[in-house]
C-alpha cells in the first residue's frame, strides 16, 4: 500500500488516519445507543487519541541531530501548515476563546484579528530568511548573525521566559481536561497530561512533534467544526452558520435591549462567593464601544498579539523544517488558512451558544424563565455541581435575569453541545479536541525551550566538542526536566489561562521582535545594539508589568496600556536602544554583511550548512 518515500505517502497515511478516527466516533455513537455511560465514552475518547499520538511519537524516534532539531527539513508545505496550526492553537484558543467572545463581544475579538494578522509579519519579515539561514533554533540565528555568546544567551533568556509563561497554561489545560474526562484529581491529572506530552516528543524531537501535531490538528478541527454545524442546523439558524447567522446576531441585540445589560456591583458579587471566577453577560455582543479610548484598547491589543506572534520561537522554528525557502513561505500561508478555519468558527459558536440560552422562543432558552425550572434542568445541575455555573436571584423576583446567570468561560465550548441536546458522543469528541489542542502547543513549547538549552547553551556555549549521541541525550534529559518543572508550576494554579498566554506574547515582542527583524532587514545592526535591545526591552517590559500587574503593584496603567499589553512598552525601548547603540558602534564586519546578503536570496546552500 505504501511505496516510495515516506513524505510521498503522507496524504494516504493521514487520509487513512482521518477515516479511522471518524469510524471510531461512529463506534462511540453506537456504544452510546447501546447504553454505555457518558463517562466511559469520555474516557475512551481521550485515552484512544492520546495513545495514537504516543504511537506516532514512538514511530518517529531518531538518533540524528537534524531529525531531532528540524525534522530532517523534509516536511511538505501543507502538512507543515497543519502542524503549525496545531502548534499555534492552544488549549486557550480551543476551550476559552468562544467563551471570551461570548462574554466580551466585539472588544474581545481583537484577539482573533491579532492572532491571525501576525502571520503576515512572520511571512514577510522573518520565516523565509530564517529558513535560508539554516539554524536549528531561534537563538541560533541571533548568536550567529550578531556573533558572540552574550547575544545568544540573551535570546535564550527571552525565549525561556516567553515560552515558559505559555507552557504552564497549556499543561494546566491538559490537566483540566484529563481530570474531567478521566475523573481523577487535578493535581494527578497534570502529571498524566505531562506524561502524554512527553511521549510525543521525547524519542523523536521535532520529527515526532511534527507528525503528532498533524494528527492532533485533524482531531481538533473536526471536534470544533462538527458541533458548530450541527447546532446551527438543529436550531434552524442555517446550514452554513458562518454566512447565515446575521439574523441571530440581530436577535441577540434585541434580546439584550429587552433583558437589559446590567453590571452587578462589587458588593453584590462579594456577597455570593459561588460566583467567584465565573462571568456573566454585561457587554453587548456586536455593538462597538464608543470613543477613542475604546478604539485604542482594541488596536493596542491587536498590535501586541500580532508582533508577539512574529516573535514566538516555537512558531518560528516550525518553518525551519520545510525543504526550501519557497516552501517555508508558502507554508506560512497554509498555517494561517488552517488557523482561520477554527478562528472564524469561534464567533459563530459564541453566537449559537448565546442565542440558545437567551431566546425564550427556543426550547433551550433559560433567561427570562423561572429560576426553579432552570435549576431542575439536567445540564444545569451537572455543571452547577462542579461549580462551573451559578445562579443568584439578585432582585428576588424568581425569574432568571441576564445578570443573574453565571458561567465559566470554558463552559461555552464544553457544554454547548449538551445544552443544544446533541448526543454525548459529541461532548467526548470536544474533550478529545481540547486535549489535542493543549498537548500540541505544550509539545512545541517544551521542545523550543529544551532545544534552546541543549543546542545553544550546552552545545554552543558549554561543550562545543560534544558528539551527536551526547547532545541528543542532553536534549532529552532537559526536555523531561522542563516538562516536570512546568507541570509543578501548573499544579499550583498560579494564573488563569488567558492572562498568562497574553504575557508570553508581550515578553517575546519586548525582547526578540526587533533583534530578529533588524537582523535580516538592517545590515548596520550590531552585536552591541542587539544585546542592549534585548536586555533593555525585556527589562522595561517586565518592570512595567510589575508596575501595572493586578497581582503585583496594580498601579493605574498609562494610556490604557495594562498588563495584557506591556509589550507596547518593552518593544519600543528595544528598538530605540538597538538603533542608537548600533549607530554608536562600528558597523558589522564584511563577513557578517555578506551573510545578510546571502539570506536574502532563496537559492543556494544555507548559511550554516545545516
Amino acid at each position, binding site marked *: 500500500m505504501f511505496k516510495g518515500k515516506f513524505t510521498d505517502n503522507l496524504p494516504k497515511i493521514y487520509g487513512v488516519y482521518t477515516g479511522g478516527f471518524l469510524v471510531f466516533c461512529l463506534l462511540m455513537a453506537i456504544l452510546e445507543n447501546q447504553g454505555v455511560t457518558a463517562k466511559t465514552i469520555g474516557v475512551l475518547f481521550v485515552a484512544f487519541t492520546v495513545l495514537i499520538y504516543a504511537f506516532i511519537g514512538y514511530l518517529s524516534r531518531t538518533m540524528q541531530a537534524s531529525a531531532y532539531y528540524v525534522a530532517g527539513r523534509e516536511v511538505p508545505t501543507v502538512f507543515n501548515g497543519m502542524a503549525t496550526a496545531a502548534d499555534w492553537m492552544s488549549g486557550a484558543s480551543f476551550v476559552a476563546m468562544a467563551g471570551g467572545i461570548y462574554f466580551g463581544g466585539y472588544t474581545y475579538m481583537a484577539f482573533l484579528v491579532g492572532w491571525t494578522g501576525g*502571520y*503576515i509579519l512572520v511571512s*514577510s519579515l522573518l520565516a523565509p530568511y530564517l529558513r535560508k539561514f539554516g539554524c536549528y533554533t531561534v537563538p541560533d540565528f541571533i548568536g550567529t548573525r550578531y556573533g558572540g555568546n552574550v547575544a545568544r544567551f540573551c535570546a535564550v533568556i527571552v525565549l525561556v521566559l516567553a515560552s515558559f509563561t505559555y507552557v504552564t497554561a497549556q499543561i494546566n489545560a491538559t490537566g483540566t481536561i484529563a481530570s474531567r474526562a478521566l475523573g481523577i484529581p487535578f493535581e494527578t491529572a497534570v502529571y498524566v497530561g505531562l506524561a502524554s506530552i512527553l511521549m510525543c516528543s521525547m524519542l523523536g524531537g521535532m520529527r515526532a512533534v511534527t507528525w503528532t501535531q498533524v494528527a492532533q490538528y485533524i482531531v481538533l478541527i473536526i471536534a470544533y467544526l462538527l458541533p458548530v454545524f450541527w447546532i446551527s442546523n438543529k436550531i434552524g439558524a442555517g446550514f452554513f452558520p458562518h454566512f447565515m447567522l446575521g439574523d441571530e*446576531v440581530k436577535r441577540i441585540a434585541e434580546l439584550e435591549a429587552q433583558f437589559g445589560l446590567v453590571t452587578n456591583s462589587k458588593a453584590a458579587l462579594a456577597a455570593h462567593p459561588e460566583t467567584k471566577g465565573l462571568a456573566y453577560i454585561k457587554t453587548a455582543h456586536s455593538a462597538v464601544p464608543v470613543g477613542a479610548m475604546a*478604539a485604542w484598547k482594541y488596536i493596542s491589543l491587536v498590535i501586541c498579539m500580532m508582533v508577539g506572534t512574529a516573535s514566538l520561537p516555537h512558531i518560528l522554528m516550525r518553518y525551519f523544517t520545510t525543504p526550501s525557502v519557497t516552501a517555508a513561505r508558502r507554508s506560512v500561508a497554509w498555517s494561517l488558512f488552517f488557523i*482561520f478555519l477554527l478562528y472564524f468558527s469561534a464567533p459563530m459558536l459564541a453566537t449559537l451558544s448565546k442565542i440558545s440560552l437567551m431566546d425564550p422562543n427556543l426550547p433551550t432558552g433559560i433567561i427570562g424563565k423561572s429560576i426553579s425550572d432552570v435549576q431542575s434542568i439536567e445540564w444545569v445541575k451537572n455543571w452547577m455541581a462542579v461549580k462551573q455555573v451559578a445562579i443568584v436571584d439578585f432582585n428576588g423576583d424568581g425569574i432568571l435575569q441576564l445578570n443573574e446567570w453565571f458561567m465559566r468561560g470554558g463552559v461555552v465550548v464544553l457544554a454547548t453541545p449538551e445544552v443544544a441536546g446533541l448526543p454525548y458522543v459529541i461532548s467526548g469528541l470536544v474533550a478529545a479536541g481540547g486535549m489535542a489542542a493543549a498537548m500540541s502547543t505544550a509539545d512545541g513549547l517544551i521542545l523550543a525551550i529544551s532545544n534552546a538549552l541543549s543546542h545553544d547553551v550546552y552545545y554552543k556555549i558549554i561543550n562545543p566538542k560534544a558528539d551527536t549521541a551526547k547532545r541528543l541525550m542532553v536534549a532529552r534529559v532537559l526536555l523531561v526536566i522542563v516538562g516536570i518543572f512546568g507541570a509543578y508550576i501548573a499544579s499550583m494554579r498560579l494564573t488563569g489561562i488567558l492572562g498568562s498566554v497574553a504575557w508570553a506574547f508581550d515578553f517575546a515582542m519586548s525582547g526578540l521582535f526587533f533583534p530578529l527583524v533588524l537582523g535580516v532587514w538592517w545590515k548596520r545592526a550590531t552585536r552591541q545594539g542587539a544585546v542592549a535591545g534585548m536586555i533593555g526591552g525585556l527589562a522595561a517590559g517586565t518592570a512595567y508589568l510589575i508596575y501595572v500587574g493586578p497581582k503585583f503593584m496594580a498601579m493605574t496603567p498609562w494610556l490604557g496600556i495594562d498588563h495584557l499589553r506591556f509589550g507596547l512598552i518593552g518593544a519600543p525601548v528595544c528598538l530605540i536602544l538597538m538603533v542608537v547603540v548600533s549607530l554608536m558602534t562600528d558597523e558589522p564586519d564584511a563577513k557578517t554583511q555578506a551573510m545578510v546578503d546571502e539570506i*536574502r536570496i532563496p537559492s543556494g546552500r544555507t548559511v550554516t550548512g545545516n
Partner: protein
Amino acid sequence: MASKNHEAHWSKTSGLMKITLALWFFFGYVIFMFGNDINSMSFLGYPLAYYMTAQGSLAAFVIILFWSTGKQQKIDEEHGVSDAGRDD
C-alpha cells in the same frame, strides 16, 4: 558585495513587503479605528465592524498571504534565484 541582479531582486522583494504590510495595516488597524462608524452598515446581514473582526479581516489576511507568496515566487524566478524545485 551583492551583485546587480541580487540588488534588483532585493529591491523588488522589499517593495512587495511594503505593499503587503500596507494591506495588512488597512485590514488589521485602519478599519477598526472607525469600528464605531462602520458598524451601522451591514454585510451578509451582520453589522460591518462585527463582521470584519469575526471573519472579514481574518479572511483578508489569508488571501493577502497567498497572493503575496505567489508574487514573491514570481520575483524569485524572474531573477533566477528561486529554490522552489527543492520541494520534490
